[in-house]
């Protein structure tokens, strides 16, 4: 399937041996090894919190290692800072790009090392050389375009060009696909393959297994900060990797749904938001998981934010048969409605505050007596949540910013389970979360429905929608265009409604 593997291994560029790193209270890495050859794509696989980021930060000089050694072309080297890594020819492209948004493409590519002619910057050379690098990547971007005007995919290409310009021999890419849409993914793959052909070693981080099989020659799996295995991709199956990564099988990820739907919990009629949502009506029953599918921008998030009282809207709604008119999230919460937002860090968490505060913020009145927060009550509540949801944290006083995506999401769930939530709305509940935590979150959702909680789940991942939903609404351009029962739903059926095939009669 892969041409490069057949060409045989290039010479060894990088060897990391027995790398260890300790943060106060946490052993982040222990005995981790990684070997990368010239012209090899080496995937680094592991759940969030497995230590991938820490390892590459050590490699790029952002962190100092506590144990182990690093060999570059067989010789021991010390990487004390980003300059050392760069001098060796190691470049890292993080998820958050390191680009001057106001600067042009050429300026970014040559940032800090503009060619000079006497005392003046030699723009001609800089622009010509930038053009050449971009052409090598097949990127049709003007070298004079301001970076802020480029799409995310184009910015990524600028980052790669910048790395190439620095005579990079080993390129580390931290989840490069996470920021890209489907269409841009294939382009990224082509770029990675062409870099590989040029003899550059690539460390490719992703937790999407499909990409690893499409791109990588070898894969190293980490789990809980420890080295698990290094395998040739040709020798393993997807299930093997999942097992190495999370210690169980993939098919067990979705719980078997067997909760009978109860009475109607939420009824929405003629929900409208100017230009965003047109006359949407739907209902959710107690104990039911209702999926909302559709392409990004189809109005799904706008609908649920209105139901949560977060945005102005007009609608006739009832909760448990009683009129429901939320004018603010506070009203919604009082009626038992909760929203897990799509943007966990921007709209959900208080990153600089601890697990306890994040958990009890909405339920604070329930642990308050006489106007004073009772520490004992609060701790009891938080400890129960940490136990019930299996939140991995050294203590309730641990800052949320230092937790993995899956655990952060559990903290948000803990917040809503601390108030009497009857309807839980989850917008992309497992985005950016590793497979293991995903399974746990599905499990929690299933448990909740058994207690009579109704769930609305927005998801762009079709397997997730199909695997979890009892009923699916499909949205397009601000309206509901289809409703599918669990048995009748398939990826094809959903896509037909979502993109607007001729069969899309309103459901």
């Amino acid at each position: 399937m892969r041409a490069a593997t057949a060409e045989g291994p290039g010479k060894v560029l990088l060897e990391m041996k027995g790398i260890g790193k300790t943060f106060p209270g946490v052993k982040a890495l222990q005995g981790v090894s990684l070997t990368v050859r010239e012209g090899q794509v080496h995937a680094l696989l592991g759940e969030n919190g497995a230590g991938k980021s820490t390892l590459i930060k050590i490699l790029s000089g952002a962190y100092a290692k506590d144990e182990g050694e690093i060999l570059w072309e067989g010789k021991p080297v010390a990487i004390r800072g980003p300059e050392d890594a760069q001098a060796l020819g190691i470049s890292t492209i993080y998820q958050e790009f390191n680009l001057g948004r106001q600067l042009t493409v050429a300026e970014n590519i040559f940032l800090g090392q503009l060619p000079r002619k006497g005392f003046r910057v030699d723009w001609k050379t800089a622009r010509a050389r930038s053009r050449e690098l971009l052409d090598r990547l097949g990127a049709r971007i003007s070298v004079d375009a301001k970076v802020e005007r480029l799409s995310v995919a184009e910015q990524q290409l600028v980052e790669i060009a910048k790395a190439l310009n620095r005579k990079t021999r080993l390129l580390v890419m931290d989840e490069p696909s996470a920021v890209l849409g489907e269409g841009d993914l294939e382009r990224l793959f082509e770029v990675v393959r062409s870099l590989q052909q040029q003899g550059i070693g690539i460390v490719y981080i992703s937790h999407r297994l499909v990409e690893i099989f499409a791109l990588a020659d070898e894969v190293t799996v980490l789990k809980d900060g420890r080295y698990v295995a290094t395998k040739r991709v040709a020798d393993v199956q997807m299930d093997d990797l999942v097992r190495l990564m999370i210690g169980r099988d993939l098919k067990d990820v979705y719980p078997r749904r067997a909760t009978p739907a109860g009475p109607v919990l939420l009824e929405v009629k003629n929900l409208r938001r100017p230009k965003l949502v047109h006359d949407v009506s739907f209902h959710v029953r107690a104990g039911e998981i209702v999926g909302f599918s559709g392409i990004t921008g189809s109005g799904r998030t706008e609908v649920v934010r209105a139901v949560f009282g977060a945005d102005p809207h007009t609608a006739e709604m009832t909760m448990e048969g009683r009129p429901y008119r939320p004018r603010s999230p506070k009203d919604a919460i009082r009626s038992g409605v909760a929203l897990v937002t799509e943007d966990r860090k921007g709209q959900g968490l208080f990153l600089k505050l601890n697990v306890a505060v994040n958990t009890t913020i909405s339920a604070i009145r329930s642990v308050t007596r006489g106007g004073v927060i009772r520490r004992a009550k609060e701790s009891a509540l938080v400890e129960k949540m940490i136990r019930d949801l299996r939140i991995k944290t050294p203590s309730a006083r641990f800052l949320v910013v230092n937790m993995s995506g899956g655990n952060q999401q559990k903290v948000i769930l803990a917040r809503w389970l601390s108030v009497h939530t009857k309807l839980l709305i989850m917008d992309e509940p497992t985005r950016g979360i590793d497979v293991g935590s995903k399974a746990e979150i599905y499990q929690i959702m299933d448990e909740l429905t058994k207690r009579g909680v109704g769930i609305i789940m927005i998801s762009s991942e079709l397997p997730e929608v199909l695997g979890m939903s009892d009923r699916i609404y499909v949205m397009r351009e601000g309206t509901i265009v289809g409703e599918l029962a669990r048995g009748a739903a398939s990826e094809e059926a959903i896509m037909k409604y979502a993109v607007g095939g001729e069969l899309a009669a309103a459901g």
Partner: protein
Amino acid sequence: MSTVATTSPAPPRTDFLRSLGSFPILGPVAALILACIFFATQSDRFLSGANFSLILQQVVVVGTLAIGQTLVILTGGIDLSNGMIMALSSVLMTGLYANSGMDPYLAVLVGMAVCVAFGVVNGWLHTFIGLPPFIVTLGTYSIAYSLVRIYTTATITDVPPALNFFGDTFRIGSTAITYGTVAMIVLYVIAWFVLRSTPAGRAVYAVGDNPEAARLAGIHTGRVLIAVYTIAAISYGIAGLLLVGRMGVGDPNTGQNGNLESITAVVLGGTSLLGGRGYIMGTLVGALIVGVFRNGLQLMGIGSNYQVLITGVLVILAASVDYLSHRGK
């Protein structure tokens, strides 16, 4: 924090700084103690009850201004108007009695009401018009400044005895302590308790950390912000009262540096200017650090211009330690 695994024997320097991040109050307290030890070795007059009482009196006004400033900064804002709101309240409280013959208690109430009005305006402009607090309070700073000048340019010396109360002293042993000092400490304790142990305190931190998340968690962020700016303004009014008690006059030339001096105390106390992280008691310690340095340098015969210079160095040092201890988080 429990240790999950054994740590390596020789932790690098940054680990010490990181651990400061977990106990942010330790840094300022350590600095304060070290400063006291240093000045005690430099001057035998430093370590005395009377001198400490004097230091406290000297920090009372800025210390009280800094309570409101801390609340505002915890929400991610900043209040440049605080010193002038204090000045306006203090000339009104004294002037309405001296020039208009108003009952002194009523005059105090009017002064406080003006503070409340300024606080509501600050909060409202920030919340509902969406202006950055820097701009809003820069504007209200100038407005309050000019209102003071319009009202009076002369120092009001005819102060009713009731307003001198906070300058009066009682004795513990041989040391005289002003009621103003006690008032400031009581205010700190109240603020500490509210921030630490009430839903309102939690809301302040939550709004400061992430306003949108706070709204979606069911907090009325607008109400919280208006309340914070208003309560802060009340603390400026109380600072005005303490100022009158301490000086014995209503001074229209005061308060212009109140904003920067109070921000200095907040920063020295380890509160982040980005909001959501900080400790009110740190601010008290921060104010005391400034007071101890001024007093100690004075005793060493070092002039006031150098004292300000050293305050500047302290701010930069404190901010650097804070930055290093939170880097990478």
